[in-house]
């Protein structure tokens, strides 16, 4: 792709992008949300026509009319959201859209042989041509989708964030498959946020930022920090502001908390003025831990002490006790999308906006305007329905809810997932401000799957593995490797401090 340019009205989504992929190469495409990765891939797959530039595929000029045309030419897309028809069988899915016909009827023998050919690329025991696609696991369905592209003879496969809903084992299988496809001469563009995956799979990578190519590098010779600075456009150190932290009184004490399935055993003491991070792989029980603590899920056993309050409580009581929760799922749980920004921010503390059950919308608006200003929420005003905002701005508003209530303990579940880098930076700033407030330092528990974020923001980190939470160890005594070992189950606990323990 040379000089690809794409504009949507006044917005320049792509400004002169060059991308080159060699045969049998895994080429990673990295960039923050909004950098232009999806737009570029839509141009490649024919969903959008470029406004400028040209493309060449396999030595010939390439300008697909639509995605089916692109696939016929040999470029197959594997999206995050799988487009499998669950009620059809595997072989029917593989030939979907280009079923081999014998007169007016489908040629089932030819369909079977085409499917077997495609499935020969990967030997997965559950995927047989006659099996209903809906009964397969998510990663197996993903393989069927790959099979569809292979059946069409695709020489270039584009993977868009393929691992976000896969388990660790399935991710390993996918990597082995990609290795195998590579050795068969198939080229792959791999889009991912996770630099660890890029390191494992790709030989070269291209970084996009704000619609332009920042640079193309050899993976083997490029340090992760360099990649991140290219993605982010500023020095990584600036990203996680950190002023002096002083841990004060214990605000929250949890002893052996167990929920109905997860968490199995979690103990933690949280002090004023500190940020404690909880690392762990997807499914380890971190979200369940916060939900049980906050009263959203039932608690089977364990002690919880918050200030003077002992025991379990409902969400309403937790807010009153000065605890707020930022859900990891802002669309389904965190926000009421068709309500205004002001309504979303002030919902837990409406009693402060009027007397005797009355509420002053004007006061709601003016208070929300304060946070819109402080957190830089881009919107048309506090009365705008929050669903119209971008992900980053929505998340800032969800965060503002905790600030408006003025809680002492902030429980943050993946607060920066899926939002643009500027919004992430703002949230890190807000977290730092909250715990270093001279008048009343708050305390923060943050769940994150992104280790650089945890190491940048936290004072201590604990790891959740299969429902069990380790001790929280000061960041200075830890390396990301230590954390990954415990998270993936290869180590039982974080390393003991080598120096004498501080009080």
């Amino acid at each position: 792709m040379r000089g690809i340019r794409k504009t949507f009205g006044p917005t320049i989504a792509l400004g002169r992008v060059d991308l080159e992929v060699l045969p049998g190469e895994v080429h990673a495409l990295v960039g923050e949300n909004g950098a232009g990765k999806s737009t570029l891939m839509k141009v490649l797959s024919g969903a959008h026509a470029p406004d400028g530039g040209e493309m060449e595929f396999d030595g010939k000029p390439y300008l697909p009319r639509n995605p089916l045309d692109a696939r016929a030419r040999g470029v197959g897309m594997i999206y995050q959201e799988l487009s499998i028809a669950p009620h059809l069988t595997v072989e029917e899915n593989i030939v979907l859209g280009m079923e081999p016909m014998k007169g007016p009827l489908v040629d089932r023998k030819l369909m079977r042989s085409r499917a077997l050919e495609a499935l020969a690329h990967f030997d997965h025991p559950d995927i047989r041509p006659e099996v209903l696609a809906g009964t397969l696991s998510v990663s197996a369905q993903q393989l069927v989708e790959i099979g569809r592209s292979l059946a069409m003879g695709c020489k270039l496969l584009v993977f868009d964030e393929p691992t976000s809903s896969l388990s660790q084992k399935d991710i390993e299988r996918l990597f082995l498959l990609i290795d195998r496809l590579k050795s068969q001469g198939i080229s792959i563009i791999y889009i991912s946020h996770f630099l660890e995956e890029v390191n494992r799979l790709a030989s070269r990578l291209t970084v996009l930022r704000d619609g332009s190519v920042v640079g193309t590098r050899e993976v083997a010779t490029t340090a992760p920090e360099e990649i991140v600075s290219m993605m982010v456009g500023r020095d990584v150190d600036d990203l996680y502001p950190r002023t002096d932290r002083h841990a004060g009184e214990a605000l929250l004490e949890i002893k052996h908390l167990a929920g109905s399935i997860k968490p199995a055993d979690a103990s933690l003491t949280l002090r004023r003025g500190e940020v404690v991070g909880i690392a762990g792989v997807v499914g380890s029980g971190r979200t369940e831990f916060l939900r049980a603590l906050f009263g959203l899920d039932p608690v089977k056993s364990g002690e919880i002490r918050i200030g003077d309050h002992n025991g379990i409580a409902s969400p309403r009581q937790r807010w009153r006790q000065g605890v707020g929760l930022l859900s990891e799922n802002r669309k389904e749980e965190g926000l009421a999308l068709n309500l205004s920004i002001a309504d979303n921010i002030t919902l837990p503390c409406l009693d402060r906006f009027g007397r005797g059950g009355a509420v002053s919308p004007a006061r709601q608006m003016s208070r929300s305007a304060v946070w819109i200003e402080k957190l830089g929420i881009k919107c048309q005003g506090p009365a705008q329905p929050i669903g119209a905002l971008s992900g980053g701005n929505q998340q800032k508003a969800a965060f503002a809810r905790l600030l408006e209530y003025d809680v002492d303990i902030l429980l943050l579940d993946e607060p920066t997932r899926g939002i643009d880098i500027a919004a992430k930076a703002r949230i890190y700033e807000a977290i730092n401000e909250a715990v270093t407030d001279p008048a009343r330092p708050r305390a923060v528990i943050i769940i994150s799957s992104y280790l650089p974020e945890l190491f940048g923001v936290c004072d201590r980190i604990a790891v959740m593995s299969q429902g069990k939470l380790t001790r929280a160890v000061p960041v200075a005594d830890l390396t990301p490797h230590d954390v990954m070992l415990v998270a993936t189950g290869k180590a039982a606990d974080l390393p003991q401090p080598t120096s004498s323990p501080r009080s």
Partner: protein
Amino acid sequence: MRLKSLLALLGPFIALLVVYGLFGARNPAMFTEDVLLNILTQTVIVGTAAIGMTLIIISGGIDLSVGSMIALCGVIAATLVTKGIDPPLVFLATIGFGGLCGLLNGGLSTGLKLMPFIVTLGTMQVFRGAGKVATNGTPVNLPFDVTAYKPWMGGSGIPWGVWLMVALAVLFTLVLRYTRFGRHVFAVGSNEQTATLCGVNVTRTKLFVYVIGGALAGLSAVMNMAKSSQGDPTTATGWELDIIAAVVIGGASLSGGVGTVLGTIIGALLMTTIRTGCVLNGIPTPWTEIITGAIIVVAVIIDRLRNRKA
């Protein structure tokens, strides 16, 4: 943003004017004061109950039993009148009974965690049956000498019922906009999980909303009794659809979180206007139903299209 909500009401209002104009063009009698008054009065019964339904639908629920509730409450009210009970007490008792019916609906759906659609589908039959059992199927006629209820739906000038409906519309508009309860109703309808996360008592909000809906249905039943001078267990059959249609035409979403009382009133007026227009133009009843249904669908489509663009 107030402008935007005014614009949202504009759609249904324009529809109302257009429909009124079209029917009037064929028969100018539509434009007379008498007919106008008639339309307003006819709207009172459906409109009052629809105010309650607005809250229920905004909260994400629905009540299919409202028609049967009106019939049952009407029977109760008429029976009390025949027993010589004074009007204020009749009003209170009927409203209270309606509230209890609403409590049953709300309690079953929140307590047993059943979909309101299913629960009220059931109570719709139960209430209807109860009314018929209580009266042996025949209407309870008000004694001829009881005239206290006439001014509510008749008499000279604007009937009291119209003022009552207006007052209730204003009251509940204020409640929805300016009270914590109103905010909670919207929150529960927009996203119940978010409301729970923010400490809203979702169960209590839902119960309240169904009780209010039932109480207003009870009030509407008294109005119905005032108009027909009887408590008829077979009245109001199918009115739940009119009531729900009024709310939806007025801009509410059946999935919750959106809706206005003013829009509902316009929706109710629209449907009465269609009925009256058809009668005045000599259109036979089956056609009236077809036209009403068609106009409802068109109004909702226009409204949805406009919402998608915004």
